[in-house]
């Protein structure tokens, strides 16, 4: 299923990559664990016999080589996984400021809703209309408490912090309707702090925006 935004495409492929790795690694570890548990189970001897350990015994079991090898394997595995996400992070973070077509929107979070200010200075509350296929740059802030702006379907997320402006961007691939939500507890209205995102065909958007701009 194609995601509705490039950021979501990248996110899902990265997520699937992580999921595959996590399931594979966990499966191997669990397989070893289950094998060990079955292989070395006590076969019901009445007397379990003398254990290997003894209080006061400083001698070590195991080899340093195994530990070093293990550390290196885990290090390569985990750090490889992590650094592989940096390019995705840069894509999702890099604000396309140089793109002349980009639409700049100021986002104001408040208890409890979202207000969007367009380049023409006019505002919409509870609804954001943008054209498809055009990058949208968001300047996010809050007028009261800590909120988190997100379009979950697009995997776009940024904290809205009073006294501070954070930037995010997204691009809707197709016309459609999506949800904007708050992802940080911000008081009793947190659950209902929603807004509608309307991604429109560019021509339709142009038409709407002209009307919107000319309205008193």
């Amino acid at each position, binding site marked *: 299923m194609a995601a509705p935004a490039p950021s979501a495409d990248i996110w899902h492929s990265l997520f699937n990559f992580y999921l595959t790795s996590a399931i594979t690694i966990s499966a191997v570890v669990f397989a070893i664990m289950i094998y060990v548990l079955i292989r070395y189970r006590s076969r019901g001897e009445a007397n379990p016999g003398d254990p290997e350990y003894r*209080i006061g015994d400083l001698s070590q079991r195991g080899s340093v080589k195994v530990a070093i090898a293990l550390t290196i394997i885990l290090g390569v595995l985990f750090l490889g996984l992590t650094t592989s996400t940096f390019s995705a992070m840069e894509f999702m973070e890099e604000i396309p400021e140089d793109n002349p077509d980009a639409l700049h929107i100021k986002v104001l979070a408040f208890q409890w809703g979202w207000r969007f200010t367009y380049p023409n200075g006019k505002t919409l509350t509870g609804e954001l209309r943008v054209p498809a296929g055009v990058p949208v740059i968001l300047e996010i802030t809050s007028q009261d408490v800590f909120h988190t702006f997100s379009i979950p379907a697009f995997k*776009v*997320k940024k904290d809205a912090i009073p006294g501070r402006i954070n930037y995010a961007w997204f691009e809707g691939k197709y016309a459609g309707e999506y949800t904007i939500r708050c992802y940080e507890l911000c008081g009793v209205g947190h659950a209902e702090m929603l807004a509608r995102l309307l991604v429109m065909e560019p021509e339709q958007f142009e038409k709407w925006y002209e009307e919107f701009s000319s309205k008193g």
Partner: protein
Amino acid sequence: MEGKEQTRVNPLIVWLFTTNHKNVGILYLVTSLYFLVVAGILALTFRIQLTVPENNFLTASAYNQAVTAHGLFMLLWVVTPLASAFANYVIPIQIGAKDMAFPRLNALSYWLYLASGIMALSSFFAPGGTADWGWTTYAPLNTLQYSPQAGGSLMGLAIIILLSSSIVATINFMVTIFRLRAPGMKLMLLPLFSIFWLVTIFLMLWAFPAFLAPLILLVADRVLGTVFFTSPEGGALLWDHLLWFFGHPEVYILLLPGLAITGDILAVFSGRKLYAKKVIVGALIVAAILSYIVWVHHMFMTGIHPGLREAFNITTELISIPFGVITISYILTLVGGKIRFTTPMLFAIGALALFIIGGASGVFNSSVALNFGMRGTFWVVGHFHYTIVGGGITGLIAGLYYWWPKMTGRMFNEKLGKLHFIIYMIGFNLLYFPMHALYDMPRRIYVYEAATGWGPINMLITMGGFLFGASFILFFWILLDSLRRGPVASDDPWNAKNYSIEWNVPSPPPEFNFPEGKVPVITAQGLEFRSINEIVGGPVSGISARIGPSKAPNIPANGGTPMEHHGPHLSPWPFVLSMGVAMTLLGLFFGPGLLILGLAVFIGSLVGWGWEDLKERFHVAIEALGEKWPFDKVENHTFAMWVFVFGEIGLFGPLFMAYFFVRANASLTGFAWPLPGQIHDITLGALNTILLFTSGLTMSLALIGAKRGEEDLLRAGLVATFILGAVFLAVKGFEWSELFAEGITFGSDISASLYYVLTGIHGAHVLAGLIALIYLIIKAYKGGFSPHRHVGVEAFAIYWGMVDAVWMFLFPLFYLI
């Protein structure tokens, strides 16, 4: 004999006034299980609310309070206290000590914990209800403007008292584990539980004071009207940095005890040595250090610099490596063993399995890119419940089954235990696993629309929650059934006597843990109990030389049992003092009568405690022998004070960081920071600097007098220090009153807030010092110190030096720049 004396005391009095580590452990156990039930029921209420879309079982406000209290209770009043229960009960025995280093402080830790719990529970009944901002308490939602309910402030105070209790416990355990080990008991010989607990308290020593710092600022905002979290110079990010600097070490504080018990149990029930124990311990230390430099991974979406994000991304991922090493070492431990699937072993295996899943989902979270999806969703909730509940609490339940026969002298029903394990695992996974599928659903929403499609999964989660809850009913039934009619447990029901000392003593152990008149000694051949004569190979008169005043054990002439307790070792003061604290602070919310009564009780208990010391009514068992590496040279009280001072760095460090954070932001927001001399009189500041500095010198003279036995010098030094300290406070009070007269109050602006709170905290330290000085002066005039008995003076000199040192920072920060 001692024991007979004890039996005549009313059992209620024994439980209230006990200072025995095993009794304190049981008090911790019962109280933490009580809070587990409370926090669990809170969780079930909000799970009912979330079962179906658009439900209206709870209001938004009730839901937010339940979520917040659930989180705070579980993190602060359940997991660590439950671990403390075992630490209190088992660790002194595992290291070969007869009790904790400071039994009364140990009791004080418990009673302060209970006092804080009473305050936290009372906060529900304060006007407007309790805190409802989520356990993370994000600013500025946590300020009065957005959350006016008094219960929120009470909850803040409750946490402050809880953290104080933990800090006292930390110091006590630090001294106990480093200084009270049996002869031959090297640190690496200790079971993992004792070693991991030592690392845990090292984490606590800085993490808990670091949490104290923002809480003090928050309570100041809410009660005094300061503006730390409402001004743009402090605000949301100041809270975020301070909270999460504490937050990540806290995660390991929660996890490590359970993880340690898991490792010990895997070794015991497979009959194998731990695989690569040194590597496990090394990995643990690495993870503990790393935990202090990962906090920004909780703040990936706050708009901080991307370069920083990558750095913290890497440090976070690095943490996977030591935990991966520990996990695999645990599995390798089993290889070649004869694994006995007892109930504790099943829970240990379960803990390891759940921890692996939690670790795997954690790898996702470290990625900044994936955080664009995960941040603030149920995925995160699923992840941390797998680690903290799955790895931590499951391990602690394994520990409870493991040590239950030791603590109660009764076995439990194994079949029911196994049934409990099965229901627990099914319930757990049904509850938390589906949360990963809700990686779009925000945390802490009390209601969601049907169109989201989250309904069916939430239904499954709630069913899992109730099954998981039911497993605890069975759990408690198993425990009660064992108490009522369980078969009597032998000393060593698990065949673990070669693993750790506690399985070599009766179940439950006698009052002083070991056979009459003997102490454990560890040799290459194993454990032996020897009488004191055999250890020192002759008369033991030399031993008392390094033992402090009022704590000198009466060493009998026959050299029999120098560690024996003499006189009652019950003390009412830890209990009374804690109740005084609770009453005073509750009085702030529920009426001045309670406040006044509380203050009277509090002051009375301080006098009582001091009196008890002066009269030497309370004696402590101190091991004069044994392993003390690497702190051989320092006396227990002095060492405890050094640990305390080290912990104070954890408090003042973040406070100074807050200062610099605010100053840096002030230059961005254009806030006009007052120029030197503009508000704070440099002359008065310099005068106070001189006063305090001179008092440091007089205190040094007092210490020299004590060491040389020159009583006049000692007395003069102490009195001079007291006078200089009192004048310092008077000057401070004059400055404050002048400022108030000029209309500069707590909330005038951020620079005033910082000035009042930072110098106020310092002033409180001076005041506490003066109170301690009164005790020292009385004792000096009664001839209570001698060249060999002056640790009180020495410890106080260290404390006073720290108070001086903090002022050396405060003076330039507020008066000169």
